[in-house]
């Protein structure tokens, strides 16, 4: 059996890692997506990079972080952010961009500034795509946060890996089940959140 407080601590650590990384991903990705609206070169670079990096196995990304940043909690967060960033940027950018041109020009005609157009027209329009990207990123973060235990992030992954080292089935199950619960929680909560935030405009 795994002591309850060990498991509780590991779960808290796992959640901190997952949601911390998700937070940093969101606050980096959304400004980057907005900035990409202003520069064709930036948007090309960002989207190409996003597409390329998405094809690379997470394990490779987590491993490569080690020679660059060492091991521990912070490198783990960074590894997760690198992967979780991409779906948010990509989806947000597409959401911002994929809007009726006439809506934008009529807003301009009403006298809205470029910034106001983004704030009041483009951004609300991008919410559904943005939230889909965030949901995907959160599920990805939850998944990679287990893996990063191998580079010393702690969390539920540590429980799993220590179970793996002596094939202790109890530990493996005790470490895995909460991550599955968290995954389903993320799926459900984001679906609900999506409905609350975009009730009228996209019903």
């Amino acid at each position, binding site marked *: 059996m795994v002591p309850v407080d060990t498991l509780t601590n590991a779960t808290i650590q796992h959640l901190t890692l997952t949601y911390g990384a998700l937070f940093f991903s969101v606050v980096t990705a959304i400004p980057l997506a907005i900035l990409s609206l202003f520069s064709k070169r930036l948007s090309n670079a960002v989207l190409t990079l996003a597409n*390329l990096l*998405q*094809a*690379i*196995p*997470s*394990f*490779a990304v987590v*491993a*490569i972080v*080690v*020679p660059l940043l060492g*091991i521990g909690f912070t490198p783990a967060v960074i590894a997760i952010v690198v992967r979780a960033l991409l779906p948010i940027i990509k989806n947000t950018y597409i959401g911002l961009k994929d809007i009726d041109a006439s809506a934008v020009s009529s807003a301009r005609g009403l006298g809205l500034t470029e910034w106001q157009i983004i704030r009041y027209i483009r951004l609300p329009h991008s919410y559904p795509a943005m939230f889909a990207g965030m949901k995907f990123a959160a*599920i990805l973060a*939850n*998944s990679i946060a*287990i*893996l990063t235990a*191998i*580079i010393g992030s702690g969390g539920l*992954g540590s429980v*799993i*890996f220590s*179970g*793996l080292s002596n*094939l202790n*089935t109890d530990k*493996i*199950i005790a*470490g*895995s*089940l909460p*991550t*599955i619960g968290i*995954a*389903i929680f*993320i*799926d459900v909560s984001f679906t609900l959140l999506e409905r609350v935030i975009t009730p009228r405009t996209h019903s």
Partner: protein
Amino acid sequence: MNIIDRIMDVWELQQLTQRTVEHLTMFAIALVVASIVGIIVGVIVYRRFRVATVLFNVLNIAETIPTLALLVLLLPLLGLGMKPTIVTSIIYSILPIARNTYTGLTSVDKEHILVAEALGLSDSEILRKVRFPLALPLIAGGIRIALVFTMGVVTLGGLIAAGGLGAPLQTGIQLYDKDIIIVTGLWVGLLALILDSVAGMIEHRLEVNRDGTR
């Protein structure tokens, strides 16, 4: 020691040629099986809207389960090594392939189906000659998504003694050997990119052919 020598060192000591072969073997088996199963599932459910909805909802939930969690949970059933790795890859890959097959088969223009019926094609002939060929670009898209999943899972297989390129990555991290990590990490990344771009090219070709702008 210059860079080439260091790369060659890692390559030989970590037996990367053999690891790559293991890696690609698992990858190919998983992707082929997942494609066959996924397409068959898509074909079976394409006329059963209810079944399809339930099935895809269940698979959607399965898809959110962290890869590593599924991988280790299969250990008590399948033991260590290649078997759970391949099975996990297949479980993740069936959804995108089956869903895209389903969408492709069901979204064929109604007019085409009507004409096929009017010409006297039977249901199975319509499936083989009209629906399936027209769904190919979408099916290829699904296989491409599955390819990326499979590459990721197979790499994780190194952690449960499946061999492949995940194994030297783990060794590198445990020994804190930067050379091993960088050489193997970049090689895995490169391999993934190459396979993904080949799949992308095939997908694009199929799309273009359907549009007729060849």
